[in-house]
């Protein structure tokens, strides 16, 4: 595992941002931390980067305790954050010139390629760049040294669709063997990138899964009944977001199994005429899980 977090707790004066968060990231994967605002995603990433120190628990990054991460490890980690403060008085080119000597593995050809791809204006001061340009600039500064681990904190937040596409393309084009850990609310855009996902809520991990397993496991189920549907009082806890409309009862099954679903449905509902299932996009999975988490009806996988 390239990143491991065990029972991370981060407590501020009045707020508990993380409450026993544990997760792990395999080398080479693209791991997304998703969850509602205030779930603790940014705090978790800052703990991994040693920008914050945990109140309790521990995390390791590249095999090093996160609290011991120094400039040596930072030469192997790229980090981009939506609210990163770049040195505004330097020009784009000046900043690349400044950063280059700090990274032993800096690839100038790759830098030129990325800068060209992202169309960064070299002579402009960083403070004069738009938010989107600054995010592209931050990404462009995080890639030329071919980091083993790229940590992205809401990299697409507040960007226009074109900038989002360019950044996602930038990530994909350079992904290679690199491990990516990102947090984002822009689930539609990152769905094509991520291989694993962890859902956080209220500073805790709700579940962690690979995208393939998640897509297979979480399905939208529509049960067509012979008569008008009404949700029964007792339903399996893995069925969330239950809605009834006419003779159709719809829900999201978070433990979908093609083999067992018909029997489970028929054991709970009478007069089942037909069962239809659909794979859900990540955004819909997130929405369903977030609602369920808010209602307190979701179970940790």
């Amino acid at each position, binding site marked *: 595992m390239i990143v491991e977090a065990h029972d991370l707790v981060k407590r501020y004066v009045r707020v508990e941002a993380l409450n026993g968060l544990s997760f792990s990231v395999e080398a080479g994967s693209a791991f997304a931390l998703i969850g509602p605002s205030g779930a603790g995603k940014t705090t978790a990433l*800052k703990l991994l*980067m*040693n*920008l*914050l*120190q945990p109140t309790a628990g521990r995390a390791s990054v590249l095999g090093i305790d996160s*609290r011991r991460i*120094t*400039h*040596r490890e*930072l*030469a192997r*980690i790229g*980090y981009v*954050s939506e*609210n*990163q*403060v*770049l*040195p505004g*008085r*330097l020009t784009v080119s*000046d900043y690349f010139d*400044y*950063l280059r*000597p*700090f*990274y032993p593995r800096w690839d100038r050809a790759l830098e030129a390629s990325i800068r060209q791809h992202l169309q960064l204006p070299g002579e402009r001061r960083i403070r004069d760049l738009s938010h989107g340009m600054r995010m592209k600039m*931050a990404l462009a*500064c995080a890639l030329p040294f071919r980091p083993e681990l790229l940590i992205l904190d809401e990299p697409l937040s507040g960007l226009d669709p074109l900038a989002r596409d360019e950044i996602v393309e930038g990530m994909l084009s350079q992904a290679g063997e690199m491990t990516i850990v990102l947090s984002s609310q822009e689930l539609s855009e990152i769905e094509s990138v991520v291989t694993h996902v962890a859902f956080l809520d209220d500073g805790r991990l709700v579940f962690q899964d690979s995208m393939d397993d998640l897509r297979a496991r979480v399905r939208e189920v529509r049960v067509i009944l012979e008569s008008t549907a009404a949700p029964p009082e007792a339903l399996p806890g893995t069925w969330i977001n239950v809605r009834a409309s006419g003779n159709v009862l719809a829900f999201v099954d978070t433990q979908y199994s093609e083999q067992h679903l018909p029997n489970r449905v028929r054991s709970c509902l009478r007069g089942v005429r037909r069962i239809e299932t659909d794979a859900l996009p990540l955004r819909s999975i997130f929405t369903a899980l977030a609602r369920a988490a808010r209602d307190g009806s979701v179970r940790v996988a």
Partner: protein
Amino acid sequence: MILHILRKDWTLLWPVVVLVAALRALAEWAVYGPGLFGDELPWAMGSDLLGNAAAVGWVVLVAAVVHQEPLSGTREDWLIRPIARWQLLCAKLLFLALMVHAPIVLVGFVGAMASGFPPGASFMASVARAGSNFAVYTLAMFALASVTRNLTQLLVSGAGLVLLVSAAQLVWGGLSGDWDGTVSGSGYAWTGEFARALLVCLCAMIVIGLQYFRRGAIAWSYAVVILGTVLPVGLAYLPWDVTLAAQQSVSRGAPAARVTLEADTSGRAAESEGRARLISATSPTVDEDATAGAIRAARRRLAGVGPDELALQGVPHAEDEDASIAVPLVVSGLAPGAILWADRADARLIDAGGREVFSGAAEELQIRGAPGVTEARQILRVPLHVYAEHAHRDLRLEIDYTFTLLTRDLSAVLRPNGGETMLPDGMNCGTRLVREMRPAVRFRCLTVAKPPSCFSVALLNNAGTRRAPELAVCNPDYAPYRRGSHLFRRFGIDIPLSHVGPEYARRSILEDRVLSFVTYEARAHFTRRLVIPALRPGEWRGR
């Protein structure tokens, strides 16, 4: 990487560096440019203005270089770059050394050389000044910058700390009943300053260490900043014994064991007053903090007529609510010409029942050594009601003195009009005749070294015989190093010709004379106790 970071900071901040250096150079020039007699108001104001502007620029520069990579917060890009913290710290300190203090050394060195001071003294003074400024002011500002994110935060924090210092002074002063502190205004003032500087420097280094090498230490850093602000205020109230011990430990000479002090109880107040001859300098003396350009009257003035006559500070007029008691003293073991300076005199009057009826500081006492036995007079002010109650009763008087013995150090003879001489250790002195309010010989010295604790001037005729009273000016400073943040210090005195005799008013006569200049330095610090077992205040009352 240190130089790489430094180059980046230079790229961003060179205009500020150039501006601050230029302001500093102009401020220095405003001091030495007009020469020895450049203490006139326009130059002093110009130097003040430029010096203050340079100081503001210096604060901005320190803040700017530290805030290029702010240490508080988690959003700064540099925090996630492979920049070793020790390299960053070294780069910042090197930047300040090279871009702020090296120009100050250069400007000071060039200015001192241009003023005719020897290269060695000029260089050493410039380096010492820059070094002390760096160790105290720059490090303190660096520490404050390291706990803030931008100049606005730094200025607000600075204002808060100023308020904190004021509050601490109110508390300390209120608790001790002494608003000025134990050593304020005395030659021992350096001990408090040195301890404060040491504490501030230490706290600054702790804060910088915490901020650069410990994550999440901001609360501790703020605590140290506050301690480093409040505690130094308390150092102004160090016990006198402690400061005396510190002073004695760095003094060059052994305690003046031969000097003894006794009350001359054979006389009476009237006789004593009759013998006393008050001679005070009537023209202003100058002790200029040259770079700042502030001219202020010397705090204390020792007037005398030479070693062969009794030199006294005049009997001050008692306030309405006070009565002054004049106690004649006899001092032996004091070499002719030497100065015995009472830095502190704690007096107590005790009645026959052992009750303390008065306790307080006796008036300042400065004694000039005469051949044989030296006479002097100690003035004691007591509240009128105490005096009235005990005027005709026997009281026991105890005075605990802390004395400093000052002896002759450097001397020179120069023409009283247009004379100029360079003394060793980097002290350039000169004279000229001025005719402002009234004719006077203006004597000024510009120095890059420590100004003397006392100096005396006297006009002599060609045969070396004194033709006019010697004037002595003291502003004791017993520091073993050169104090202050300014390179050039100016001091001197205007010798009014009406005071020395109307015949000197004519330039031609004056040019036949010479001016003798002597400096005095502290050689020993020691205590003495004066006890008069039975003293009736009414018999010793002064005017």
